[in-house]
């Protein structure tokens, strides 16, 4: 699907209650979508309608209400699988992207990794792509190695190839788009190189699936993780996509209802995919909401969403560069980066920036963004980060720039 239409943020904002102007005419300049996105009415209404018209537990109910609930729940799964070209049987609901990565670390890693096996992560991973592997490495004797970044915020591909060729790398766990630098990593390419050396690849697509066309099949990876709340969906739901052949051969992770075929006092048998990895009552209303979010995104067109992001990023890179002394982290070419823009002002700490621009209704994040190894690699403790989405426009960037100037002036008083 290609969409001639560009994103019209003014039109899009009408779907988001939180972004409507107040009576005084002020409106929220929300520049923190890399942390979590706002939710369109269609998503909230789908969940509300589910609870008010179809709420029941899924899968086992014979009565019609339970069938209706099951259908809406599974429709959500279908919408997610379609959005990212994933096999339905390999589309597993988790509580967030973090659980999705942990699922692979515990269910695959803990039972597979041997002493001295290497798990390759990168310096630009989110903590959720690091800590699960550290925990499991400690239990198995495997080793976690960090692919370094170059000064311009790209991965050091030579290091990666050298390590793949020289170390027993079993898993490469890598972020698609960095939540701090914005860097878009060439994941399909890395997958091919890793597979050539017999390593599996997990792609953390938390920051890409909401913002650009992403195809599990196209990337060719073995696992892919992303999270509902960053892609217009609700909290409480994440997704692990896995290649069914691999998932079939894995032991389960969480045990309990829904994931079994039989439970006996002397042992149990597992259900088919995807249920084998979905223990307990799943996030039912959340699947309904996430399904509505996928449909909303598809109707905008992910190509258009990405074009809008590039447009805004281009504008923002220019506008921010005008500010005296402001340092931007990550690649300079908007075509090679996502919408997360981290920056530093020499005289204003990120915390103070976030506090001061909030006074002008501008929401930006300050801190380590769950990426402390990256902070160390960049030689900073924290950054301020502005991140855009479909409801932002150049006015929002202008508002940020104005607010930054005002913040500086205020501190110089």
């Amino acid at each position, binding site marked *: 699907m290609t969409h001639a239409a560009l994103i019209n943020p003014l039109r899009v904002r009408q779907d988001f209650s939180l972004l409507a102007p107040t009576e005084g005419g002020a409106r929220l300049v929300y520049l923190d979508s890399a942390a979590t996105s706002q939710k369109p009415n269609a998503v909230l209404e789908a969940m509300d309608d589910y609870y008010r018209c179809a709420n029941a537990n899924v899968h*086992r*109910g*014979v009565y019609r209400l339970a*069938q209706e609930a*099951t259908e809406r729940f599974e429709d959500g799964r279908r919408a997610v699988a379609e959005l990212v070209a994933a096999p339905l049987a390999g589309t597993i609901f988790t509580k967030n992207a973090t659980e999705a990565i942990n699922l692979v670390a515990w269910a695959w890693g803990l039972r597979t990794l041997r002493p001295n096996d290497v798990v390759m992560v990168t310096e630009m991973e989110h903590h959720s792509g690091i800590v699960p592997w550290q925990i499991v490495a400690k239990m198995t004797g495997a080793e976690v190695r960090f692919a370094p970044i170059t000064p311009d915020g790209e991965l050091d591909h030579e290091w990666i190839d050298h390590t793949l060729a020289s170390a027993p790398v079993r898993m490469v766990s890598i972020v698609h788009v960095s939540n701090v630098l914005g860097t878009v990593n060439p994941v399909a390419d890395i997958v091919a190189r890793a597979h050539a050396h017999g390593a599996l690849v997990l792609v953390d697509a938390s920051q890409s699936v909401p913002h650009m066309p992403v195809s599990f099949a196209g990337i060719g990876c073995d696992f892919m993780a992303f999270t509902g709340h960053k892609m217009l969906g609700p909290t409480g739901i994440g997704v692990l996509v896995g290649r069914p052949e691999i998932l079939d051969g894995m032991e389960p992770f969480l045990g309990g209802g829904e994931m*079994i*075929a*039989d439970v006996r006092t002397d042992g149990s048998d*597992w*259900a088919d995919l995807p249920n084998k990895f979905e223990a307990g009552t799943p996030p039912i209303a959340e699947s309904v909401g996430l399904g509505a979010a996928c449909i909303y995104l598809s109707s905008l067109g992910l190509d258009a969403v990405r074009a809008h992001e590039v447009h805004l990023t281009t504008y923002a890179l220019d506008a921010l560069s005008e500010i005296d002394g402001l340092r931007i982290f990550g690649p300079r070419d908007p075509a090679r980066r996502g919408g997360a823009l981290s920056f530093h002002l020499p005289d204003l700490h990120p915390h103070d920036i976030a506090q001061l621009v909030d006074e002008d209704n501008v929401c930006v994040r300050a801190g380590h963004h769950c990426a402390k190894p990256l902070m160390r690699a960049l030689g900073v403790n924290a950054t301020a980060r502005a991140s855009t989405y479909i409801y932002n426009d150049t006015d929002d960037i202008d508002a940020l720039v104005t607010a930054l100037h005002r913040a500086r002036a205020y501190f110089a008083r």
Partner: protein
Amino acid sequence: MPGLDDLYQQLILDHYRRPRHRGTLSEPTIEVDQQNPLCGDELHITVRIVDDQITEIAHAGEGCSISQSSASMMSDAVVGHSVADALAMIEHFRRVMHGEIVADETILGDAIALEGVAKYPVRIKCALLSWMALKDGLINGTPTAQEDQ
């Protein structure tokens, strides 16, 4: 209950109350146990095959009206047929249950009465249970944990 008459056809209730081929064959060629993961119902199917023909079949175990009548109708349908014919019948029935094709009475016999089950997604597993058990038996001689749906 007019809404349910499509599901619970007289023919189904009749097979449920008076199941054909009920029991267990001694010294069967094939023996399969299958469980319905939805409700825990267990089905035991024994088959005797001579020269690639299903000469005898029997089903035992507990189940709901749909799974029990289906086992009875399935047994009626396949007995006397070749293994290949039986597999074709099973595939036909599977596709009917999944709403992919219209049922052909010349293939299914009484089991055509189960066509209405396709509208009740949760019960499809009940109707398919015995057919999938037989399929597994014919192909593997052993059961699998789950029906392939």
